[in-house]
């Protein structure tokens, strides 16, 4: 069964450092997303991406964040200068259509710890 894969599974970084979280969405999907989940809190939308550009972003997705699809398979989330409050699980998701009326497939997540 096709799946979304994320690497690394766990990343520890120093405050102020840049991190890149990587995702390989399902191959024939066109819509890509990043979500985050702070420990004990709900899953929150960060950004959606379609046709090589951001289609929507949340208030959380400020100038410190960026996304890129550098080739035909990878989808990355970059945090330029990490803060302690960026510590969370980050989930990548993809869907074949707008996730609103089609299911979204989530990866297993990257646990980011900022120290």
């Amino acid at each position, binding site marked *: 069964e096709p799946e979304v894969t994320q690497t690394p599974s766990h990343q520890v970084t120093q405050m102020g450092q840049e991190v890149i979280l990587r995702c390989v969405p399902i191959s024939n999907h066109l819509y890509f997303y990043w979500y985050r989940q702070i420990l004990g*809190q709900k*899953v929150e939308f960060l950004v959606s991406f379609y046709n090589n550009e951001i*289609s929507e972003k949340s208030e959380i997705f400020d100038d410190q964040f960026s996304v890129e699809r550098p080739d035909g398979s990878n989808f990355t989330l970059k945090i330029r200068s990490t803060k302690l409050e960026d510590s969370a699980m980050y989930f990548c998701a993809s869907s074949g259509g707008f996730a*609103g009326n089609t*299911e*979204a497939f*989530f*990866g297993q*997540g990257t646990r980011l710890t900022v120290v």
Partner: protein
Amino acid sequence: SQKIEQNSEALNIQEGKTATLTCNYTNYSPAYLQWYRQDPGRGPVFLLLIRENEKEKRKERLKVTFDTTLKQSLFHITASQPADSATYLCAPGRRNQGGKLIFGQGTELSVKP
């Protein structure tokens, strides 16, 4: 602003019983509603989608209802098993919401043998 509420307290039930989880929403009228399962430390997994013109949807032991008058969805697991223990998330969505999912807090279900 739109608000999504799920039972904040964990639901503990005996194996074999039916689990019923609630998702209430206010300040908007979703065109559809999705339910996901999330295990600890893992990503959400899609279970069911129900549209506003559908009252009920079933998949194996799962049943979802969507009451647009009450602004509520109920998620039922019949003949529950310990393997059903997880957190269940609802995500009601507006027609013009685009692709993003806005999740509720989730309800933790624990099924005891």
